[in-house]
């Protein structure tokens, strides 16, 4: 497989890979363009102070979320870090709910309580959005632990067959130096857990380049060897390549229940967060990578297969309209009522998010924080297994 990000701007055709059906490839182009447009509008909304807190955009890395998630099934759990809008959209989160979350509105995927860094979507098996660097990797290993436990303990007892779900756990290269990541990799290797740990290696841990913070920064997949885990490099700037490489790995993990580590080579076109002036890298470097823009790469590949400029413009029009209406939807979603402050601290009647933007969803009576309530009889929605 290819190693370093291909920054030469060349149209890559990997003859060894089967051809992706044109309709599928076009849907990926649309998803990547949607994420790009969504993030551009996020930056704008952030500057207009409609989005608060920290905001980390995914521009430049769209092929990673789209290509990896396309290789999974909807039932496969996914967990990621705080640069999470792309994963949420690629996983199928309604852009309205994603945008409303950042606007801190009740129609947000977490009712406005999570924010940009904490995108959760139970229906799409997205387990967050996590703000502490590396913390999501033990969680991801735990998701894999649970799916394996489900197969080997619960389903086995019921003769229920195997679900063989595969978990994707994403991290950035900066998280590679967190102890919890290494503890989790050891556990994944030790317990043979069906998880693919995907390091979105964009070369920078905030403003610290990988060589300044990470040993073996030129070959991070070597780290997985110590945990008895296969390490694979993938070109994350080419969605077709990402997809095929990931498809192989997902199929393999589904069959073997052995964890795999991926060094996903990519580049973040914007700063770490909205306040980052990017003084730590040169404009020349950025331009070099921008020539290998994953959206441009895919577009060029599809043009060779007959994609017309009109079709491309139509997709562009469509994603612009989608994102514009997401912003409008978010703006019209109510702010959370103050009574919401005390909800969802402990399990209570007002349950999971239902996808409505209306405050009626707050119905169901005045629920105090149910400190003293013990009810072990209710069949909780939380119990997936």
């Amino acid at each position, binding site marked *: 497989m290819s190693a370093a990000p291909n920054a030469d701007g060349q149209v890559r055709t990997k003859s060894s890979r089967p051809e992706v059906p044109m309709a599928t490839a076009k849907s990926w182009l649309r998803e990547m363009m949607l994420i790009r447009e969504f993030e551009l509008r996020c930056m704008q909304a952030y500057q207009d102070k409609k989005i608060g807190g920290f905001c980390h955009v995914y521009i430049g890395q769209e092929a990673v979320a789209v290509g990896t998630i396309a290789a999974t099934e909807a039932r496969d*759990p996914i*967990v990621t870090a705080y640069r999470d809008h792309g994963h949420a959209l690629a996983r199928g989160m309604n852009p309205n709910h994603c945008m409303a979350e950042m606007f801190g509105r009740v129609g*947000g*995927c*977490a*009712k*406005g*309580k*999570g924010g940009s860094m*904490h995108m*959760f*979507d*139970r229906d799409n098996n997205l*387990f*967050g959005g*996590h703000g*502490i660097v590396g*913390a999501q*990797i*033990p*969680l*991801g*290993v*735990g*998701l*894999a*632990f*649970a*799916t394996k*436990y489900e197969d*080997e*303990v*619960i389903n086995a*007892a019921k003769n229920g067959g195997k679900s063989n779900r595969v978990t994707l756990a994403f991290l950035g290269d900066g998280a590679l130096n967190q*102890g*919890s990541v*290494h*503890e*989790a990799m*050891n*556990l994944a290797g*030790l317990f043979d857990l069906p998880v693919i740990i995907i390091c979105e290696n964009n070369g920078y841990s905030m403003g610290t380049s990988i060589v300044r913070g990470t040993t073996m920064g030129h070959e991070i997949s070597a780290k997985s060897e110590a945990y008895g885990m296969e390490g694979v490099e993938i070109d994350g700037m080419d969605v077709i390549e990402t997809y095929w490489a990931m498809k192989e790995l997902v199929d393999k993990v589904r069959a073997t229940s052995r964890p795999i580590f991926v060094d996903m080579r990519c580049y973040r076109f914007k700063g770490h967060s909205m306040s980052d002036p990017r003084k730590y890298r040169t404009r020349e470097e950025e331009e070099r990578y921008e020539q290998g823009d994953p959206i441009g790469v895919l577009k060029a590949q599809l043009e060779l297969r007959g994609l017309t400029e009109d079709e491309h413009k139509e997709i562009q029009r469509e994603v612009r309209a989608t994102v514009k209406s997401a912003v409008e939807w978010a703006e019209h979603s109510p702010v959370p009522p103050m009574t919401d402050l005390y*909800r*969802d*601290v*402990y*399990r209570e009647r*007002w*349950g*999971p*998010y239902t996808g409505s933007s209306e405050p009626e969803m707050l119905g169901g009576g005045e629920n105090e924080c149910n*400190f*003293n309530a*013990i009810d*072990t009889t209710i069949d*909780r929605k*939380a*119990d*997936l*297994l």
Partner: protein
Amino acid sequence: MSIASMREIEFRDAVREAMSEEMRRDMRVMLMGEEVAQYNGAYKVSRGMLDEFGPRRVIDTPISESGFAGMAIGAAMMGLRPIVEFMSWSFSLVAADPILNNAPKMLYMSGGQFGCPIVFRGNNGAGGQLGSTHSWSIEGLFSNVPGMKMVIPSNPYDAKGLMKTAIRDDDPVFFLESERLLSMRGEVPEEEYLIPFGQARIARAGKDCTIVSFGRMVNVCLEVAIELEKEGISCEILDMRTIRPLDAASIIRSVKRTGACVVVDQSWSFGSPGSEVAALVHRECFDDLDNYVHRVHSADVPAPYAYGLEQEYLPNARRIAEAVRSCLYRS
């Protein structure tokens, strides 16, 4: 329950019975931690559980609290109901991020989508000359965090009933045992029972002074009460059983009757369950109090190693008795 069904078992047996019964009842419940399986538990709490449930449900982990606590939280998000043993709560500090920053906040920050039905359990408080790093009473530090529940049983009966409730609870529960209590024997019925959270137990009825305590310190308070009785002081001892939720109503009811309140809490005094109880009593019983709430905590120093120093560091019978007498103007 019938007397015939009563038998005397150790605290550790009570915890094990609760875990085993719940694991028989619910396939989603499993136990993981350091040395819990083949070694039968560093303190023999999980003795025999590997034999009954096998290595898929009783799981030895490497020494990586942050990793396995986080793994268990991920599993809980998927719907399992893990029990995580920390050999000591002192060791849980390296897992502070998963247990404090993930488990109690997951439900809230996901807008109610992902709860975390998990029990963290282990020894809390001074074990006996273990020095400052191994002698943590984490209740002061950890009970500060909303979204979690904290259970601190004082005897085998409560330990079993509260553990069963903890395992069935849908929120993260921090279950604090004590190395010094594990061999304590007490009557526990054969029949199944659960003890609800947030209901204090009157460990001893009295009329002069309310002593609010929890965990191992309840037993020290009971000894002190017997001694004080000889001086004509009648103490009412409330065993809180759970710190979160805190049974404020029972505290207020008792203090309104006695007019005096002493809190005994083995964590440090600054920002502790003890200070919270004192604030509560001062607010709710302001006109009923004959004196300010007296508090007995561990000394505000790191836990010392030397035997005599450690004995003086911890809340002990002498310091508790002094506090009660002072509170009643008897000193």
